[in-house]
């Protein structure tokens, strides 16, 4: 195995350990706990308050726009990482180009702000 992939072996080991840990804890709980189900116990737990309605509620379109904005700025961020890594090599040229890139999207954000979609009502 190459040196490069050996470094990722650590990731695999950790992932395996995490999975094992969860399985152990849940498995141990399953083995030890007594099982006496009642109707009261199987209702959803809402911090001690009696739950209202079913466990699932349809979400509002407002959340969707936040999710969409998140995707857009996530994509923007992806382009910033490589630039930040070799900032000095690109110098002023890189700064100007990245500036154009960010300003175009920032103006979009200004529009979103003025349209009131960023307000949490």
């Amino acid at each position, binding site marked *: 195995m190459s040196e490069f992939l050996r470094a990722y072996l650590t990731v695999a080991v950790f992932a395996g350990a995490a999975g094992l840990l969860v399985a152990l804890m849940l498995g141990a709980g399953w083995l030890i706990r007594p099982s006496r189900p009642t109707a009261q116990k199987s209702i959803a737990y809402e911090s001690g308050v009696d739950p209202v309605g079913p466990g699932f509620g349809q979400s509002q379109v407002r959340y969707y726009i936040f999710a969409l904005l998140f995707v857009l700025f996530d994509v923007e961020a992806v382009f910033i990482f490589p630039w930040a890594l*070799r900032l*000095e*090599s*690109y*110098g002023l*040229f*890189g700064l100007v180009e990245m500036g154009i890139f960010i300003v*175009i999207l920032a*103006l*979009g954000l*200004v*529009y979103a*702000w*003025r*349209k009131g979609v960023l307000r949490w009502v």
Partner: protein
Amino acid sequence: MTPAVIAQIEPIATPEIEWFAVSPLLVLVGGALVLLTAAALARSRPPRGFYALFTVVTAALAVACSALLWQRVTDPGRGPFTAIGGAITIDGFSVFFAVTITAAIALGALLADDYLRREGLDGPELYVLMLLSGTGGVVMAMANDLIVVFLGLETLSIALYVMAGLHLRRLESQESAIKYFVLGSFSSAFLLYGIALVYGATGSTNFGAIAGFLSGNVLASNGLLLAGFALLLVGLGFKVAAVPFHVWTPDVYQGAPTPVTAFMASASKAAGFAALLRVFVSTFDVYRLDWRPLMWGLAVLSLLVGSFLAVVQSDVKRMLAYSSISHAGFILVGAEAASDRGIAGALFYLLAYTFMVVGSFGVATLVGGRGDADHGLSAYRGLSRRRPLLALAFTVLLLAQAGVPLTSGFLAKFYVIGAAVEADSYALALIAMLSAVVAAFVYLRITVAMYMGDETEGAEAVTRPAVRVPPGAALALGVAVAFTIVVGILPSPVVDFARDAVPVLLSAP
């Protein structure tokens, strides 16, 4: 920072930015940004028609920049060039499409002005999206790299998906947006896979490098390349609405707000053909024996399906949608010829078609009335009495689409069919002429409805709301009709423009 670290920093060779070369793009994007920001920050509503006027001025500025670029690329001492690291090509072809698409933006904005107020949708958004969409189209035309083509196409398309669904209260508008979006994303995926396969086969996405590789190497197995051709053709065929990738066209053209349909039918088709011509006819020239049969099939199917199905429609927007499919077939006839003459014919056709189709959908915008719903053939009955000038303008545009002499449409059909004959595609030329005859029936049907048949239903004609002709739309229609007739009579400037706009293959410096 220690000196040792500083020593490691090596500046990369950054490409030179020729701002002038991309000036039409900068104007379009800049216009969109200014409009968006100003409209968002303004405290009061601007005067009526400000957004449309701003868009038209932006478009005019972009045309002016294109004119300066045209001077440079046609100057024998300087000629076409690649810019910004070889990612874009500035040649007559890019300038030609910059002008065509920008004209579609200006005409579309003029049509949209009154429409938006009539439908209670007034705001800067449509104009911003139109400018951004047009930017994407011009990027596609200027592209010298498959990745640039893809991004241009996505910019064009995403703005168009939203524009199609802009009329939020009309169910048809939302339906057309979702249909266009789902099918459009699907076709983009095909295009992207095609780009990947061509990259795998040739080792580059740059047109100059691909063409150089293809002419310099004989591939032992070219399955990868041919599959790439097929997938690229699916993606671009969808954009230009060529059969069998046309199924979205009637529904989307019918459901989208009519000024958006006008823009979609002109700018999006022009941009799609810009990419198609540059990628296939110019870049894959060496492999013409492989892609010409594919293009032949697309052309024949588009011609026949477009003209025959247009006949059986009862909705004028759907008729125009099918006729735009058959127009795509005609332009493909020019592309199939795979010659400079064929490209010049296709370019002439596209420019003439842009004005004809924007004008035709412009009339539909006005006749459609409040609610944008009155698009049945019956709405046009007796239009010649209610609005004689409007009926006359529509008649001219329809006759031009049919290819009647003394209009730009006749010469457009003449040039592409001439190019097909020159390239020995006699069968294709014959099918094109046959389908022109069939399609003429559709245009005549609308014309006849406008000039006859209102006596029997006088009562209905009275109850029909009067067709309003606002000044912006009147200007757009006037320009479209004038262009159609003037070019039909005096074609030589446009013919020269199209002839000098044949794409040039340039490698990155």
